[in-house]
């Protein structure tokens, strides 16, 4: 059992949990992910690590209550336990001093971007951060990101905060004005696809963090197949970070939707789905 030691609501339906898992915390690095299971009938879901506190032996995960399992997870409170929490999985981000870099985060993707940005800043990079959300109330980790960035920008789709429009608008501006060595982009699949299309003409290497469907997370099932260049890679062991310019995005986006119908069925039949009184 793994205890939830702290919870925080970051935005409507976006929650932060700090979970006690000292062995995982001792080894985890920026860019890696964990897999958890809420209860004995639960599915294994991957979540990218949003922060690591080695002294306290905890890891921070952030999730949006979008499906059956994330909603069920969201029903839990401080002091509750989940049955399984395994990690750290995947390869850590390649942190070095590149020079001037840009970190772009969208929606809940800002959370996993944060430890990477912090590590890049600590490695001596000049960090330009661009984060975005649909609207101001959905924007998360603003203060955290600001603290580890030399330049910080915000975009909201509805213009309720910062630039009205998309993170790509701001990114394009940066690329037009300054020489950038590398870009990290984490967010919804469609956002990462558009960012890669934006950065390609500038020939700036763009690293994305994939979040495909997984089961075991150790290279055993191949559910997380991603087509990178001419090769099929397993995001769980070869990734989750890949060169975004080489990814077959249409395929990746389609594969994320394999169980969409089942997800609806689970929610309709689910013990939670609001039925537990949590919503």
């Amino acid at each position, binding site marked *: 059992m793994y205890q939830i030691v702290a919870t925080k609501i970051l935005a409507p339906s976006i929650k932060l949990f700090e979970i006690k898992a000292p*062995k995982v915390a001792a080894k985890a690095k920026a860019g890696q992910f964990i897999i958890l299971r809420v209860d004995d009938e639960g599915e294994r879901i991957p979540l990218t690590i949003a922060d690591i506190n080695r002294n306290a032996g905890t890891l921070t995960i952030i999730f949006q209550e979008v499906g059956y399992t994330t909603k069920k997870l969201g029903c839990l409170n401080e002091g509750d336990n989940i049955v399984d929490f*395994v990690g750290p999985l995947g390869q850590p981000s390649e942190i070095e001093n590149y020079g001037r870099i840009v970190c772009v985060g969208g929606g809940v993707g800002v959370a996993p971007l944060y430890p990477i940005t912090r590590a890049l800043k600590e490695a001596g990079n000049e960090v330009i951060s661009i984060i975005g959300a649909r609207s101001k109330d959905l924007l998360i980790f603003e203060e955290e990101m600001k603290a580890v960035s030399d330049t910080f920008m915000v975009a909201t789709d509805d213009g309720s905060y910062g630039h009205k429009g998309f993170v790509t608008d701001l990114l394009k501006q940066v690329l037009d004005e300054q020489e950038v060595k590398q870009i990290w982009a984490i967010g919804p699949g469609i956002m990462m696809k558009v960012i890669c299309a934006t950065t390609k003409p500038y020939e700036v290497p763009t690293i994305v963090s994939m979040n495909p469907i997984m*089961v075991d997370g150790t290279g*055993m*099932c*191949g559910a997380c197949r991603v*087509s990178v260049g001419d090769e099929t890679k397993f995001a769980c*062991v070869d990734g989750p970070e890949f060169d975004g310019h080489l990814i077959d995005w249409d395929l990746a986006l389609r*594969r994320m939707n394999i169980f969409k119908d089942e997800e609806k069925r689970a929610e309709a039949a689910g013990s939670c789905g609001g039925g537990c009184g949590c919503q």
Partner: protein
Amino acid sequence: MPIIKVKTSMPSQDPKVRKSNFNEVATGYTKEMALQEAERCIQCKNEPCRQGCPVEVDIPAFIQKIKDQDFAGAADKLKEKNNLPAVCGRVCPQESQCESFCTLGKKNDPVGIGRLERFAADYQLEAGVLDPEVTQSTGKRVAVVGGGPAGLTAAADLARFGHQVTVFEALHVAGGVLMYGIPEFRLPKEIVQREIDYIRKLGVDIQTNSVIGKLDTVDELLEKGYDAVFIGTGAGLPYFMDIPGENLNGVYSANEFLTRTNLMKAYKFPEAATPIKIGKRVAVVGAGNVAMDGARTALRLGAEESYIVYRRAAEQMPARDEEIEHAEEEGVQFKLLTSPIEIVGTEDGWVKGMTCVEYELGEPDDSGRRRPIKIEGSEFFMEVDTVVMAIGQGPNPLVPSTTPGMELKSKGTIVAEDGTGKTTKDGVFAGGDIVTGAATVILAMGAGKDAAKAINEYLQNK
């Protein structure tokens, strides 16, 4: 008394009924059937059957106990050598092991050793197993990496030698392929769980959710005071064919298909939260035991048509005869001498069929089997909406790639000495599929047993 020539048949669920449930197919001998079958054993002096058992079970002795109606005693006899008898009684290929050496088998059916093993083990599980005696501790600590058949066997034997054993299992339950791979209808998970509980009672500490190579490495385990390490991480890397369309929605590796269904209980979806999507027409590519499991699972999940697609001929199928028969009885259709060259998708990326070619048999190849040769112009389209790739698994690289100083073979398996499992790294032993490539449960158990002996000797001399 004249010898009964035929093996007492195994009662089983009617194929028409069982193909739509996940209950066990073979329901097991009754006491009367077991006594009848045990009587067939002539207790011959030279005991040839024993040489066919990778874990050296004293077969005549346990059968004699059944004859004496001491069923729990029979199970105890089995457990002197075999830590998972209820599992082995179900999934061992006895026809090519113990039973192939049976004296009776020269003229008649061999004694149903596997069926008797299952009977005795089940009897004891049902009657309640007494807690085993825990051997006095030697003070030595051994880490076992991987909680599958090899690791569990090594762990149990090492505990019996008095060593303090910790098993590190990556998944949320121990059992390895017994839990994620072999279907419920062939090996009920309750049975596996109970045999693992017994191993725990021997004093073995099983830590789940522990991915060695990501948490501690093998070197770090040695630094942290483990006196030896056994690696039994199995063949957990699914192979694909590398043909166009393999990443379309609706193409699974057999590992994913079976893991979702068995380990994650997707057949109970949505009560169990893990989904599986099954079409009306399912093609399983390959013809080993895993492929049969996939094809039979597909039927139980509601597929209207389930095909085995295999590029060689019937007599070359690597699956056990029993598995093939069961699949046929349940209505699995066999497209032999056939192989896909492309998986074709709909506009929105779902499988709609496979372009296949037909083969004919030529001269024998390296494996001694007649080589399949493609027939020019034989391309045809096979309409299916789900494809399961069951063409084999390789060694999972997670542990080998994080263990410097341990020699590997070109395909990524670990170099280990035959009979001891000694690797080229001091204090590190390995066995099972991670050494041999994908093989059987019992061979992995045999390797675990050999390694336990060798580790015990190593620790005594250390």
